[in-house]
């Protein structure tokens, strides 16, 4: 198991060091600093073995978190734990920075004591932790409160406490998708996939039993025509067109979702944590709506000049608006000057980033825009040809490129007197660009 956990600043100074196992000594702290943080070369692996000691590290801004062990630990678990550790810290004191860590080092030690025992990760749900690690002392707890805390920390529903009350029961569902594309210069889709998340923010009283439904092809096909009318109604509101159901390649769920039930019936039922949680992640590869198409044209005019023309086409309903559009056209390292003309938005050559950045605030569906640029090059004797990195794109669209639709989210709380109809529900779809690249 994890033998120790260290947090360093960018200089390699230790901010937090907690050792759980006897086989990890102080020298391990230095070994990591010397061999990884101060290493001349770029990091070649997130797992480093130094003198039979293994170091797992992740970096958050300029803070290094390193878990150390001498055993054959579950490597995936260690990384998951490190990410979790970051989440917990963020939930407690905001951004992970040197300043914040130093200011909260006592809290961090207390957290580390609780969520990692002898190197074994323990319950690390912030909801539960915040009930008893508060940094204000827990002097005035009644016996009931104490046992409530412990039963929550160890309980089957460790992510939610009893006795939550809201005057207004409300829930927000965000379907957040990032659409990834790799396209060849000729417009052939080399790979495309959507990775999506359903984020739920709930403010519900008691221990509500929830059921979530979406236009999952397997469920729809199973229900047959019974569900068709409902589906037709839901299908119209989106931007992607009338796709009835979508094929989900794979999905994973927050630990509150009963996985065995999903496996058997493909129904998603759970008692949500209070506040925000990422209910589900999913991935689709079939019938993706690609919101933009990038058509590049690069021409080398002699050895000292490049002509670039890029056309972008929006491919969704004209009534919808895409926002925050940015096209990034890489330029060679030996660029000396650039002239740009674009039809829409603003374009600038950024020498420090070796790219022309073209920004458009808004763009409706089924439109087209174009940029052309002349790039002057300095003559070099470098034999190596320019690698021509792909043209990348950023945007945000108000629909789900996968075609996913939320069909329902039903709430049952048998013990309290509110019904599914009393809950105010909000659903929002946001599609963003992931790695959206076109080779040129």
């Amino acid at each position, binding site marked *: *198991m994890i033998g120790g956990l260290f947090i360093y600043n960018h200089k390699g100074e230790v*901010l937090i*060091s907690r*050792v759980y196992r006897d*086989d990890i000594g102080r020298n391990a702290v230095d070994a990591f600093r010397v061999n990884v943080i101060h290493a001349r070369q770029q990091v070649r692996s997130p*797992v480093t*073995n130094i003198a039979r000691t*293994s170091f797992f*590290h*992740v970096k958050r801004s300029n803070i290094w978190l390193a878990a150390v062990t001498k*055993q*054959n*630990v579950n*490597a*995936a*678990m260690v*990384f*998951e*734990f490190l*990410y979790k550790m970051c989440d917990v810290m963020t939930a407690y*004191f905001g951004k992970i920075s040197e300043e914040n860590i*130093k*200011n*909260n*080092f*006592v809290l961090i*030690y207390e957290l580390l*004591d609780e969520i990692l*025992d*002898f190197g*074994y*990760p*323990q*319950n*690390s*749900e912030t909801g539960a932790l*915040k009930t008893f690690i508060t940094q204000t*002392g827990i002097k005035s707890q009644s016996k009931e409160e104490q046992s409530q805390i*412990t039963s929550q*920390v160890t*309980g089957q529903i460790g992510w939610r406490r009893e006795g939550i009350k809201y005057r207004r029961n409300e829930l927000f569902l965000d379907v957040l998708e990032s659409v990834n594309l790799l396209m*060849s210069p000729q417009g052939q889709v*080399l790979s495309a996939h959507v990775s999506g998340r359903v984020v739920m923010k709930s403010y519900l009283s008691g221990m509500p039993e929830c059921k979530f439904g979406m236009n999952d092809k397997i469920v729809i096909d199973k229900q047959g025509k019974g569900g068709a009318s409902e589906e037709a109604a839901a299908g119209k509101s989106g931007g992607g067109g009338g796709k009835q159901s979508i094929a989900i390649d*794979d999905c*994973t*769920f*927050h*630990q509150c979702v009963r*996985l*065995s039930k999903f496996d*058997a019936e493909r129904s998603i039922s759970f008692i949500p944590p209070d506040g*925000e949680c*990422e209910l589900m*992640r999913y*991935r689709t590869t079939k019938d993706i709506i690609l919101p933009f198409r990038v058509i590049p044209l690069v021409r080398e005019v002699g050895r000292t000049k490049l002509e670039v023309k890029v056309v972008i086409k929006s491919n969704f309903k004209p009534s919808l608006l895409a926002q925050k559009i940015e096209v990034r056209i890489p330029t060679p390292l030996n660029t000396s000057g650039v002239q740009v003309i674009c039809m829409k938005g603003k374009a600038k050559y950024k020498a420090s980033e070796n790219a022309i950045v073209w920004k458009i605030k808004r763009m409706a569906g089924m439109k087209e825009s174009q940029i052309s640029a002349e790039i002057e090059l300095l003559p070099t004797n470098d*034999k190596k*040809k320019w690698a021509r*990195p792909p043209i990348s794109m950023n945007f945000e669209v108000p629909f789900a490129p996968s075609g996913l639709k939320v069909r329902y989210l039903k709430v049952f709380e048998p013990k309290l007197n509110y019904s599914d109809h009393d809950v105010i529900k909000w659903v929002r779809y946001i599609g963003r660009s992931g790695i959206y*690249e076109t*080779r040129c």
Partner: protein
Amino acid sequence: MEWANQLCENRQFGSKMTDSKYFTTTKKGEIFELKAELNSDKKEKKKEAVKKVIASMTVGKDVSALFPDVVNCMQTDNLELKKLVYLYLMNYAKSQPDMAIMAVNTFVKDCEDANPLIRALAVRTMGCIRVDKITEYLCEPLRKCLKDEDPYVRKTAAVCVAKLHDINAQLVEDQGFLDTLKDLISDSNPMVVANAVAALSEIAESHPNSNLLDLNPQSINKLLTALNECTEWGQIFILDCLANYTPRDDRESQSICERVTPRLSHANSAVVLSAVKVLMKFMEMLPKDLDYYSTLLKKLAPPLVTLLSAEPELQYVALRNINLIVQKRPEILKHEMKVFFVKYNDPIYVKLEKLDIMIRLASQANIAQVLAELKEYATEVDVDFVRKAVRAIGRCAIKVEQSAERCVSTLLDLIQTKVNYVVQEAIVVIKDIFRKYPNKYESVIATLCENLDSLDEPEARAAMIWIVGEYAERIDNADELLESFLEGFHDESTQVQLQLLTAIVKLFLKKPTETQELVQQVLSLATQDSDNPDLRDRGYIYWRLLSTDPVAAKEVVLAEKPLISEETDLIEPTLLEELICHIGTLASVYHKPPSAFVEGSRGVMHKRLPARTGSGESTESPDVGTAAGGSAPEAAPSIIPSQGDLLGDLLNLDMAPPTTSGPPPPTTGMQMGGMDLLGGGLDSLLGGDIGGSPAMGAGFGAAPAVMPASLNAPVGGGLGDLFDLGGVGMPMGAYIPPKIVWLPAMKAKGLEISGTFARRAGVIQMELILTNKAMSVMTDFAIQFNRNSFGLAPAGPLQVLTPLGPNQTIEVSLPLSTVGPVMKMDPLNNLQVAVKNNIDVFYFSCQYPISMLFVEDGKMERQVFLATWKDIPNDNESQFQIKDCHLNSDAASSKLQGSNIFTIAKRTVEGQDMLYMSIKLSNGIWVLAELRVQAGNSNYTISLKCRAPEVSQCVFQCYEAVLKN
């Protein structure tokens, strides 16, 4: 969320520049100040002081001097302060054990506290204080906490047992904590179960043989129930524990799989990977024709692909594991090539791993796409990545024949870029392509030669030299090219030197007239001016070959080379199996068994995949069978340090990917004889001991080369006449030594071999007991002997017809002949044996009693005996004492006769019996003996005379063994 954020902000605001200041104190006399503050009356001041102490501790300052003062702060009702003091204690208690005792009372008291959080805190901290004296006091509180009414305390106590075990294992056993821990597996609270499982698994690791976890269907059922209810971490503990279980049959295995598959949808990647591990392992037991088996295969792909959308560090772990899974079961991900395409912004470690998997998944169906990608990668920035991409193109050519032409032209395009490292890498892979498809792409040689000057890496230089040597007849100026390399011969690396030597010899054999000078030059450089033994040895071999028999030299040096294999860098199958059992762990990331990087006893136990149970085995569909690779023995590439490799080494194919070497080819006696001659010849040539000469001999033996008779002359010396003349005889009660263990299971991946030799009815037999101490079934046994002094060789195959299941034992007797190849061994009766099964090839050596070579017609005529005795020079006589033998001469004589030692005459002189005996060995050597037995004296004296005096020692040992049994 809102309230929490606000709270945080407030707190930050309030404490701004308060806590971080502790990190900046660098004053002198700090310790004294702290001491004063710690003893302050004001609580707030005390707390601040402890915080400062902890901050100093964090940055590595030694604040152990404050121990008593800090411990004084322990008795407080301020939980925050208490936790800080505990933290300090955990760090320094070991350096101040006596002082630490001061804290014990508080701990014990806290363990009784009304607040479960404090009880748990106390027991948790106490377990971290590694001081013997404290552990004694820990036992009672721990016992109570293990049975506490509050699950939070119980789950903490469960881990504490593991802590205590780490400090004092004996104490834990004596106090019966292990049983209490086992009871916790049935606890009503899932988190208690999970921690108990984690603790037990860890303790079990250091006691590999204690059946501590005692996994049985009932306890497995409990674990599977807890699996649905506990935290993500608990699920990992339980899944990792489940993976150690071996189901009794395929049904049980299927039902466990069914209950584990829902975990594949968990958001935590570690849960997913551990579930994959359980499934990959238990799948082994399912019959392949089962519908469920293919359903399961299909279910595995999506979660594995999803892992690639995790954070980069986890992607890396996932990719390293996928690399193993693809080797074990290629069918799972064969349609998922695209997800492994490299993204421009992937971290380099993810890129390199993806590339590896792309090559493994490349097939005829997707090769066009793969090649397009690889070409794209070859223009990237990172040098390592580009090199790997170029190499990958070569590997695609070798793997998918249809694509070879396109690959070669892609490589040529890349060479045109003139980017130094790209060119070098391309030349290295083109060499491999030439090996794989001889006489197909040689037209590109001209282009390659243009880049000769830019090559500065040994591997690329060596590859280029190999190409020039191999195709010397087609390259007009081959001699000039090679000569240009020769100028800086001594500055080259060994790899290049060896290659250059071989290439020039090849050139000479192809164009002898123009290149005589060159070859002489290189031979003298290699043999006279070099200190490198490998280089000198190779030089001498060529020199000798060329000077004695150029025809033979041609056959050796220009022999047809074995084709190189399609798959390279495959992990050796047994290791792969073990790594599959370690999916998700560090071992799977390093691709090394835990024993390679874990110290001590932990994790040294080798894990094994379970064997498929009987049903459905025979109906295994062929396509799945071959696709599944690893599990099917015939598909498993063997990793024997086989003759092929040695040959490769000698002919300088060593830089090529490993050759596909099947089981060692059945070599006939003739060939083996031939190689012995060469081996011996070299020995005498170089005046004795050259390192590794048998290996070289073996290497030549694999080549279809027949050694010229002229080499025969200097060989063998005294052993020249040892060739067998055969022998017939009658059955007798010959002496059979007891069976001893020749090959312990530890050294042979679970196969234990014990045995002995016997001569029954004139037939020499090797009697073996094979025991399977591994977890998987062993099949495909075969045996082979190394050359030995008396030409012993198996007269038939090893008759193990049924697969050998775990814990099964089989007795086999193997008839031996004495017509095998001969080489003098030391000791003379040493026999080196190789046994192969589906898992590996194992080597051991044993010594046989020479008495089994005594033939039945070994009774010499009296006259002949006398004449021979006189004829053998006295130098050849040796005398031995046999002590403590209480047989009289007649009894001795008849006993010896049972082992074909014949008494020819008996004489009694002054109460001393003199027995004259003769022995004939299977190879026709006669041994004459005179045994003196004195009444009343239990010590016998024996004189042995033989033309080959080397055997005397062994014969004497036989006497002793026979007489004393």
